[in-house]
């Protein structure tokens, strides 16, 4: 027989368990999102379940504003805040390699150092490669500043490492929540819920809370712009890679080429989305989520904003003497973004998708409780 060890809860986890015991006796918020229906399938909340539910929470704020037990009530129920704190714990606990989990703790510093390092690296390399930052490159040919092979040799391992580190982390998380077999329908549902940000719709389609108890779709829309803008940029890189290796068509490409169109569109969309998210984050109700994580949230949004902005500037200034400078800035930002991908806010995407998948699987399983009341 396999023994399931009962792990002691840390204070942030104990708080979620305490809050959920109150919520489970109330259940008024069941219609807002998946967290509460998932909660009602349980009577107790061991560690793995707390981490699952914390990552299922999208921090929309609806349950805080609707809560009859929210502060100043003596029960002091603040689900989004309690969940946010455990989410941060999830990222640390499941980080690979484990010592790097500490990077989440001081994430503002982590991102700042990564950015400074990325910028310094490319600026110095640019100077080393061509003697100065101000030199016109005919046709905006940036491979004359940084050779293609060099960029591949640098970015490919960084990106691959990010993928591996996040995959290992989320695999450990997944094993802990013992989801059972994943059916195609469950996977499709989880993908749908993630790609549409279903649980930022408030359960009524009018969105989530930002500054007060009013509902708005602003965050959902800005997140969509950010995510899909990011994907377009990524698609631009993928198409360009295909052009380079499969067809031997080398950058720079025409303004009307597919990589350029994807990149420009993606950059603009990402810029608008991340600027919107930053604006909303700065105006968020202070009781939403965990203010200690603001450096992580805002740092990540700032990197996305900088990546998009510097990419667009580079595109505009490619035929000027600022090419090398703009290129170094852009590549420095992108390097910082990718280096910190597994140890920053981006982690929420993989853990949340895993939690959504777990929920899609779980809700297809029979409920073992036979609770009924008035």
């Amino acid at each position: 027989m396999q023994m399931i060890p009962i792990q002691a809860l840390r204070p942030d986890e104990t708080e979620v368990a305490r809050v959920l015991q109150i919520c489970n006796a109330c259940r008024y918020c069941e219609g807002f999102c998946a967290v509460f229906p998932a909660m009602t399938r349980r009577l107790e909340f061991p560690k793995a379940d707390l981490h699952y539910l914390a990552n299922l929470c999208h921090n929309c704020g609806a349950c805080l504003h609707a809560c009859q037990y929210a502060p100043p009530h003596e029960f002091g129920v603040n689900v989004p805040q309690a969940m946010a704190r455990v989410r941060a714990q999830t990222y640390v606990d499941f980080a690979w390699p484990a010592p790097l989990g500490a990077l989440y703790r001081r994430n503002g510093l982590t991102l700042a150092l990564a950015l400074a390092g990325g910028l310094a690296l490319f600026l110095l390399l640019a100077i080393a490669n061509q003697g100065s930052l101000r030199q016109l490159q005919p046709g905006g040919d940036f491979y004359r500043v940084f050779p293609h092979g060099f960029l591949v040799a640098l970015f490919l391992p960084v990106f691959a490492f990010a993928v591996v580190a996040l995959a290992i982390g989320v695999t450990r998380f997944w094993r802990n929540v013992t989801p059972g077999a994943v059916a195609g329908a469950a996977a499709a549902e989880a993908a749908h819920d993630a790609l549409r940000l279903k649980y930022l719709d408030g359960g009524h389609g009018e969105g989530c809370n930002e500054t007060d108890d009013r509902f708005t779709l602003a965050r959902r829309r800005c997140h969509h712009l950010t995510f899909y803008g990011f994907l377009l940029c990524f698609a631009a890189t993928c198409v360009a890679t295909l052009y380079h290796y499969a067809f031997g068509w080398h950058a720079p490409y025409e303004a009307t080429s597919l990589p350029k169109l994807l990149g420009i569109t993606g950059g603009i969309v990402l810029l608008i989305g991340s600027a919107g998210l930053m604006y909303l984050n700065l105006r968020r109700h202070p009781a939403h989520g965990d203010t200690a994580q603001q450096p992580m949230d805002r740092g990540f949004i700032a990197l996305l904003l900088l990546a998009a902005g510097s990419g667009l500037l580079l595109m505009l200034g490619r035929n000027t003497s600022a090419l090398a400078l703009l290129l170094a800035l852009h590549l420095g930002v992108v390097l910082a973004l990718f280096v910190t991908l597994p140890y920053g806010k981006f982690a929420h995407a993989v853990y949340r998708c895993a939690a959504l998948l777990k929920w899609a699987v779980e809700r297809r399983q029979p409920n073992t409780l036979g609770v009924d009341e008035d």
Partner: protein
Amino acid sequence: MVDVLVIGGGNAALCAALAAREAGASVLLLEAAPRDWRGGNSPHTRNLRCMHDAPQDVLVDAYPEEEYWQDLLNVTGGRTDEKLARLVIRESSTCRMWMRKHGVRFQPSLSGALHTARTNAFFLGGGKALVNAYYRSAEGLGARVRYQAPVERIELQDGHFKAAFVGNERIEARACVLAAGGFESNRQWLREAWGRNDAGEWPADNFLIRGTRFNTGTLLRFMLDAGADPVGDPTQAHMVAIDARAPLYDGGICTRIDSVTLGVVINRAAERFYDEGEEFWPKRYAIWGRLIAQQPGQIAWSIIDAKAIGRFMPPVFPGAKAATHEELARQLGLDEARFGATLRRYNAACRVGTFDHTRLDDCATQDLQPAKSHWARPIDTPPFYGYALRPGVTFTYLGLRVDETAAVRFGDQPSANLFVAGEMMAGNVLGKGYTAGVGMSIGTAFGRIAGSNAAAVALKAQH
């Protein structure tokens, strides 16, 4: 001068303010509580009992007027006013469109409350979400809201409203709606109403209040003293059995203990005192508050064993848990010998057939007083659990008599410009007993009536 002054800040007050504003009147709403505690008891509500003749969005099947009326007649034992009750019932079939317009969203019955899928429309996010939506809508429409503005008295002239006083500030209005709640959080009034029992106890001293601490009945008392026609009995209230560890105020829904039908309930003498399996819990939970109020010390304990776990709504606080009857008695501070004897007698009397908590099953006791008519199974599977219970008052029924205009009456003459809604008049429809969601139906119906009538009077007075 403002057209319509609304005194109170819960569902009925908000419905009145919205209706008056929609009718074109200027509106000032005075909420006694600070903003964080606004809404009276409404943040603790969750649904509206709705008449409907066919399936409607979140409601299944039909719940026709006649069935609703019979349910109300049944729970009140006839202490209701048929004309007003039917008015509320009919309003409940149409008011949800209006509620939606003002931002209220509905959802099907919550898990654990599926038996109300036909009769009750649940507010998405519960009553506080509804209250938030109404305040947003009221302010959006230009109604003014003041918090921490408790009205202590009003100025009347021959039954005519002149002004209200917040402290020494005199606020005039052309018409006024009183919707300031019952007196459930006025300890002294409850004490007087319930009096002293034969054992010399003041039972009401041991009551917990499930709702707001701001319903002190100040305005209700003022109106009664001013000669407004009363309705109802001050000891009648919605009263349920709740966890004895619940906070004194605002414990709300989560402090209920729903394990009663699955075990036995004993008093301080470790004796059973009522048939725990008489009926389904939803049909009986509202009588257990009064039953416990009549026990010594106004306390009782729900005792269950491991077989019951997972079959009732999880309680907000963990229960006492023990491996033996004796140990449980010790933990609960009860006489071990008597506790053991009561459980042995009960266990021996159980005639277990086919246990089924979803119907009135054939598990009953034999030759036991009082009997347990259904779901009687021996309490023999450790661990054993015990939850201390106290009476929890939701709201009181003593109020002001009205007719279908919601006007306050003096010597059976209606006031021309003073109206009343919500708990302050719910006793007209609900003289006794309770059925889930009917309080919100009354508040919504009469809130809107009072608001529209007040606006009509005020606008006429303007010209």
